[in-house]
């Protein structure tokens, strides 16, 4: 249509054009283009899906509109405040949902408590939230311990209660709901609940009245009444008087919506009875005949039921809040409990019993409550974890345990010995006041594994699920294996994390420094250092050699510990092979040690023999005892010979020469001498005591070729001479001197004596005042025993001065010190058949 040249595209909604406004008009004008949008194309048709008739839930969704129904809609769009009014209820609901989901499967007793305390969402007191925090849980049976039940005071109240609930509300209320239920069931699908207008109305009214009742302050006579036998403090508190102060007229009307609303819930809610019964109950217009049997079937639940009943006998109004109705407890059966004549199902009946009966009843009741409560507490978390979850957690824990303490089977073996060497050995050295050093941890892990095994053993006999336990054990085994084999990665890169997370355990605390040694530097260092060890005789290389010896020694000691048991028989090929392998390895280690000792190395000019050089270090001396244990007889003899050959070059001999002047040796040297005599001399002495005369004679002849003056003027040298001489004397005593080898010995001895004689007067340390000269007297005694009479004379002549001086000095000394000195001298005098007594 064109008017005055305007095309169709003009604003037809403008004044003067009485056409309906078409928002798509502009588009339709371009029909020619072919791609214009049609309304039918763009509209998704959602509006057609709306169910215009199903507004029944609008109240639930948008809050209580009954108050404002009469008022015009107005412009109050503050929906939030409507929601905010029930926010607490929503929160509670949320919490409860989370809370109830798991136990709903199994934990039956938990239900009444939680639901009841939730049943009054409008009471947002701390008490109604009481169950939210653990601290608010009470045992639930404190009530029974107080004396309220024993004195008569609450009894009258009890009777009043009975008249209030037992008569007025119950009887009229009972039939109506049943009927309406029946009707509701037949009319509406059980899964989906639709309220009729009357129902909604009744509900609204009840809410309004409940609000009114709440507002009126009331003396709450039942709040503490024993009639209620409260099960949970929350219930007790959340049950103020407002409920029973609702005018009785409303009871029927209120009861109607309650039951209707409850029904769907009750079918879902887990019921303690067999599932058939609730259904049967629903169809029974008069449920009285059914109820008692249910009670009889569950006598233990009586107390709980009674408590519930005590509360729900009140015409509990669906308290405002849209979420209230669905959360009403599912126990519709309550209404008929009071009818049971013989079993106490209603608290009011308690008052009709005799004193003893009541006491007995209360006692029983208390027991039941206690038991129920225990079951409740325990079963609250039933089924939270599946068996798989449990085994998973157990595996994690065990893995942690393994990582932290190591494989329990390895304790007391190599693993723990390397990790905890000092403590293990130390405590075993200390006599083992604790047999198992890391008992706490170790035992813990072990006993745990043990228990697992035992438990499965029991189960095998009793029950079926051994499979699971076996699997568990295998898993544990695998976990242990995996933890052992897994390369210890110290750092873990979790996807998305900004850095590396390093974790630690007891065994390997988090390292502060992580220094990676590169192989190249290692290789570069090694040849040069190895070269040095061979060539230079400096302190550093000596020390390195000693360390190498120690390392080999430790290896040998470790090797000794794994000595296989001797083959059981000649046919035990395996055992023989093991023994062979072991001794081959021992042989290899022995060769390592021998070459590390460098006994056969030629000394460089200007340096002592490499082996002797080792003996000038504390560490080297200390190693001697251990070295000897791992050497063959031949090797030991070689070393002894080597020591004697180099005796005049030993650090502790050359640098520890005694002089007549009272020059003190340095503390370090004194310590060295001490260690040498303790470590080396001791070892050599023990070895020497096994040697035969010909070797001893050979040693003495070698010794006499050394610089005897230097050797004899040192404590170590003198001790060495004494050792050799005394060993020969002992052999003489044992075998007798008829042996042909004695001739060789005598020759050696004569030669030796001749060479030593000039040094004899100078062997004493310091002046005569020096008390520490016993080793010299020992040497003289050893010389004297084996000496011929002529040699003895020469001996006496050589040391006569010292003898006389010492005897004279001893007289001036305190008695015990003097006696000591005389005794030392006497050692020598007696060896040549004299006594100091003769000199006095």
């Amino acid at each position: 249509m064109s008017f005055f040249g305007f095309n169709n595209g003009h604003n037809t909604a403008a004044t003067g054009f009485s056409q309906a406004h078409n928002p798509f008009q502009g588009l339709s004008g371009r029909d020619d283009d072919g791609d214009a949008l049609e309304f039918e194309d763009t509209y998704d048709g959602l509006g057609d899906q709306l169910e215009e008739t199903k507004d029944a839930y609008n109240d639930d969704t948008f809050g209580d509109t009954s108050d404002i129904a009469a008022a015009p809609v107005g412009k109050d769009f503050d929906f939030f405040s409507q929601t905010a009014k029930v926010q607490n209820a929503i929160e509670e609901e949320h919490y409860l949902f989370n809370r109830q989901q798991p136990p709903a499967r199994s934990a039956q007793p938990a239900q009444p408590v939680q639901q009841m305390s939730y049943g009054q969402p409008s009471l947002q007191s701390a008490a109604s939230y009481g169950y939210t925090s653990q601290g608010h849980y009470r045992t639930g049976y404190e009530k029974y311990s107080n004396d309220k039940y024993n004195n008569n005071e609450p009894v009258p109240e009890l009777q009043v209660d009975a008249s209030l609930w037992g008569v007025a509300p119950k009887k009229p209320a009972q039939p109506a709901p049943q009927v309406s239920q029946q009707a509701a069931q037949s009319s509406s699908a059980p899964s989906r609940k639709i309220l009729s207008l009357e129902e909604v109305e009744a509900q609204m009214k009840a809410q309004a009245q409940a609000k009114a009742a709440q507002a009126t302050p009331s003396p709450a006579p039942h709040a503490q009444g024993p009639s209620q036998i409260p099960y949970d403090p929350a219930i007790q508190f959340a049950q103020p008087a407002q409920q029973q102060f609702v005018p009785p007229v409303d009871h029927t009307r209120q009861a109607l919506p309650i039951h209707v609303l409850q029904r769907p819930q009750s079918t879902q809610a887990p019921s303690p009875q067999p599932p058939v019964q609730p259904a049967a109950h629903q169809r029974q217009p008069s449920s009285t005949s059914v109820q008692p049997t249910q009670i009889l079937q569950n006598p233990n639940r009586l107390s709980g039921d009674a408590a519930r009943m005590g509360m729900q006998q009140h015409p509990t109004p669906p308290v405002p809040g849209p979420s209230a109705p669905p959360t009403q407890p599912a126990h519709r059966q309550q209404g008929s409990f009071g009818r049971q004549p013989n079993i106490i199902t209603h608290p009011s009946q308690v008052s009709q019993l005799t004193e003893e009966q009541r006491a007995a009843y209360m006692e029983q009741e208390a027991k039941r409550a206690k038991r129920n409560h225990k079951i409740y507490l325990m079963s609250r978390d039933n089924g939270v974890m599946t068996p798989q979850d449990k085994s998973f957690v157990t595996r994690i824990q065990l893995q942690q345990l393994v990582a932290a303490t190591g494989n329990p089977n390895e304790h007391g073996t190599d693993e723990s010995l390397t990790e905890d060497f000092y403590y293990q050995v130390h405590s075993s050295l200390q006599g083992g006041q604790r047999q198992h050093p890391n008992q706490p941890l170790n035992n813990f892990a072990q006993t745990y594994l043990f228990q697992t095994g035992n438990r499965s053993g029991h189960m095998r006999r009793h029950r079926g699920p051994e499979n699971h336990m076996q699997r568990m054990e295998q898993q544990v085994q695998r976990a242990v294996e995996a933890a052992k084999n897994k390369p210890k990665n110290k750092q873990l890169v979790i996807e998305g994390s900004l850095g590396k997370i390093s974790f630690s355990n007891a065994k390997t605390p988090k390292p502060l420094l992580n220094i990676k040694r590169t192989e190249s530097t290692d290789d570069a260092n090694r040849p040069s250092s190895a070269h040095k060890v061979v060539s230079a005789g400096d302190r550093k290389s000596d020390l390195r050699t000693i360390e190498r010896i120690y390392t080999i020694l430790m290896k040998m000691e470790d090797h000794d510990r794994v000595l296989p048991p001797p083959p059981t028989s000649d046919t035990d090929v395996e055992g023989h092979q093991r023994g062979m392998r072991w001794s081959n390895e021992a042989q290899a280690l022995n060769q390592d040690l021998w070459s590390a000792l460098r006994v056969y190395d030629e000394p460089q000019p200007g340096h002592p023999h490499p082996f002797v050089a080792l003996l000038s270090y504390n560490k080297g001396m200390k190693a001697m005892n251990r070295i000897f244990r791992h050497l063959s007889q031949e090797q030991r003899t070689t070393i002894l010979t080597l020591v004697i050959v180099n005796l005049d070059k030993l650090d502790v001999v050359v640098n520890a020469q005694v002089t007549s002047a009272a020059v003190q040796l340095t503390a370090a040297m004194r310590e060295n001498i001490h260690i040498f005599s303790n470590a080396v001399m001791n070892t050599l002495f023990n070895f020497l005591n096994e040697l035969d005369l010909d070797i001893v004679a050979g040693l003495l002849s070698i010794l006499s070729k050394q610089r005897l003056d230097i050797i004899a003027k040192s404590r170590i040298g003198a001790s060495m001479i004494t050792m050799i001489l005394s060993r020969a004397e002992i052999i003489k005593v044992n075998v007798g001197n008829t042996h042909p080898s004695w001739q060789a010995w005598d020759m050696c001895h004569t030669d030796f004596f001749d060479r030593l004689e000039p040094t004899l007067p100078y062997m004493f340390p310091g002046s005569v005042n020096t008390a520490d000269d016993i080793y010299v007297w020992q040497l003289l005694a050893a010389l004297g025993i084996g000496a011929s009479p002529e040699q003895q004379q020469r001996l006496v002549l050589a040391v006569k001065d010292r003898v006389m001086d010492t005897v004279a000095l001893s007289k001036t000394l305190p008695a015990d010190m003097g006696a000591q000195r005389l005794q030392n001298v006497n050692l020598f005098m007696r060896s040549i058949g004299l006594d100091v007594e003769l000199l006095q």
Partner: protein
Amino acid sequence: MLFFSFFKTLIDHEVTVELKNDIRIRGVLKSVDQYLNIKLDNIQVVDELKYPHLSAVKNVFIRGSVVRYVHLPSQSVDIDLLEDATRREAANQAVKAK
């Protein structure tokens, strides 16, 4: 683990722990853990006049990281064994480093 192992052998011996804030506490070593946290019993502060607030304290738990020195009773230390333990530890470390 060497030090842990070592300190375990000193349990029930009297030691003096010197902290990084210069307080020296003498007491009987009751326990030690892998972090070298130390539990002392029957303690006595060496310079008691300077730290009077500690004079009423009978036992302490010391975090390992605040310890500067532990003075040992030398007679209860097996030096040779300790040397060997150190060698083993060093060998272990060398193996682990590779």
